[in-house]
């Protein structure tokens, strides 16, 4: 069931962009009107082109035949095209987006003077959430890449768009800055009620942030599903190969500062993750790389792997040398990749109860 808020924020897209006689994208979808939709796919899949079409930055002639509407407001249709500056959309770019002749404060003021909506977010709230208090009097050229992206995000929030688009905002950052900005994005997602569309070619980012995923390939929608459904999809796992990962959602119940671990409850079971900073009593997403999931028929108590969760096998897909195993763990889906040999040796089959030993790496 959708509420009034969702209805007021549904984006409906039928995009067709061609350059010369080459079709760049051709896809159709409708958003849920809240949360984060990830546009996922390889470089060159058409993610940025699709995002720019939504924003109104693709020329009307190149995107001829496209239809874009938001909350019943037609942005583009046959014979009509609403200019980008009138759509009330915010876009955080990959880099080079701050006005270089203005200070950080000047950039924020530029955005607040032209705000798309009259009320809503407060300056202090945004500055605090993005952690840019100390940067206000600096000039963009003196900021690091991560700082520039944080200011870019703050500026967009202060501008109060009805829809927030993010075009690989972490792509040009080093791992530490990447981590920091991701935490900020998660805070923004929780704190500001604004639907987001997030472009990324990295599955670990998608898992941390997204609610729904639109998987683009060659400019077309390959799949459009909720993150949890797509994360345990065999086809997606094969597509991602070494990077394939799925997620478990659980609640932090206990921190062991001594050993730098946090205990996460998943249904009636629990697991330890190597991060003592996770907020207790909060829900967290655990990124589980499918190669880090091992299966055994009896619970492993003498292994170096800390976690062992009782699961039931739902489905198996045999490959040449490996097999993908879909598991049900406390009502959540999990994916494991094992060799075919192990699969046969353990007589793994649908309905068999197994123990999954898991190294949990990234969390949010």
């Amino acid at each position, binding site marked *: 069931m959708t509420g009034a808020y969702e209805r007021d924020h549904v984006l409906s897209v039928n995009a067709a962009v061609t350059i010369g006689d080459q079709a760049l994208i051709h896809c159709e979808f409708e958003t849920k009107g809240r949360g984060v939709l990830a546009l996922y796919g390889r470089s060159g899949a058409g993610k940025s082109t699709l995002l720019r079409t939504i*924003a109104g*930055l693709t020329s009307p002639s190149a995107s001829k035949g496209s239809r874009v509407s938001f909350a019943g407001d037609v942005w583009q249709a046959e014979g009509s095209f609403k*200019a*980008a*500056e*009138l*759509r*009330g*959309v*915010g*876009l955080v*770019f990959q*880099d*080079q*987006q*701050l*006005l*270089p*002749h203005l200070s950080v404060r000047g950039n924020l003021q*530029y*955005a607040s003077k*032209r*705000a*798309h909506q009259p009320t809503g977010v407060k300056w202090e709230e945004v500055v605090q959430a993005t952690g840019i208090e100390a940067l206000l009097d600096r*000039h963009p*050229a*003196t900021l690091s890449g991560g700082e520039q992206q944080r200011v*870019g995000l703050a*500026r*967009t929030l202060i*501008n109060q*768009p009805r829809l927030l688009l993010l075009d690989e905002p972490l792509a040009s950052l080093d791992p530490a800055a990447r981590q920091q900005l991701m935490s900020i994005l998660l805070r923004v997602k929780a704190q500001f009620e604004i639907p987001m569309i997030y472009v990324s070619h990295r599955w670990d980012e998608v898992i941390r942030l997204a609610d729904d995923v639109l998987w683009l390939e060659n400019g077309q929608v390959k799949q459009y599903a909720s993150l949890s459904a797509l994360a345990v999809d065999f086809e997606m796992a094969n597509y991602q190969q070494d990077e394939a990962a799925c997620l478990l959602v659980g609640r932090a119940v206990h921190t062991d500062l001594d050993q730098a671990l946090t205990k996460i409850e998943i249904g009636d079971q629990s697991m330890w993750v190597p991060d003592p900073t996770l907020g207790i009593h909060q829900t967290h997403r655990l990124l589980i790389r499918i190669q880090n999931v091992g299966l055994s028929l009896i619970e492993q108590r003498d292994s170096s792997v800390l976690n062992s969760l009782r699961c039931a096998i739902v489905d198996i897909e045999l490959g040449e040398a490996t097999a993908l195993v879909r598991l049900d763990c406390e009502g959540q889906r999990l994916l494991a990749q094992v060799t075919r040999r192990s699969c046969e040796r353990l007589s793994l089959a649908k309905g068999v109860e197994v123990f999954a030993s898991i190294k949990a790496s990234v969390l949010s």
Partner: protein
Amino acid sequence: MSVEWAVITTTIQLALTTTLVLALMGLPLAWWLARSDSFIARLAQPLVSLPLVLPPTVIGFYLLLAFSPKGGLGKLWLTTFDRSLAFSFAGLVIGSTIYSLPFFVQPMVVAFKQIPSSIIDASRLLGAKAIDRFFTIALPLGRHGFLVACVMTFAHTIGEFGIVLMIGGNIPEETRVVSIALFDYVEAMDYQRAHILAGGLVAFAFISLLIVEWLNQSHLRDSHRRLGL
């Protein structure tokens, strides 16, 4: 014996007025040329550059026809201001503006094109409309190009000869400028005064180019400092 001072003041007046007119007209024109990829803009680009390759006498000839009391512009001018446009200071300004157009517009187009499109896109999505963007993005970020364009336009107008010859009429304190006076002195075998004007023009041109060079250097230093180099 000295050169006529009126010649120099008239010349400077003409160059200043032309630069001012071009600053008002040329900035929006250059912004449009730099940003638009429409068919008309692609047609306008070579049109703006035409004075670079045409002999000034060709422009002068057509302007003379347009300025004549029987020509469209000349007739309109005559009925509005009750005086002739040909052989007047105003006529010279129009001629100089057309002649110096590329010298103002080209450096501005280059400067505007250097503004990253992501910055312009960002300002659009923040809600800045076209005129807003012109004043808050284009002008502040193109200011280096603006200084270069002004010096080039000023210097180039000082040195023009062909068009002035055709439409000026060599009227003292109205249309008699340095380049024409120099021509007169040489015709009259007055080499001493010719030397003063010619030498002065060489020095002036050299200083102008020096200023442009200095502006370019300081711009380079500026952008290096911005990038932290």
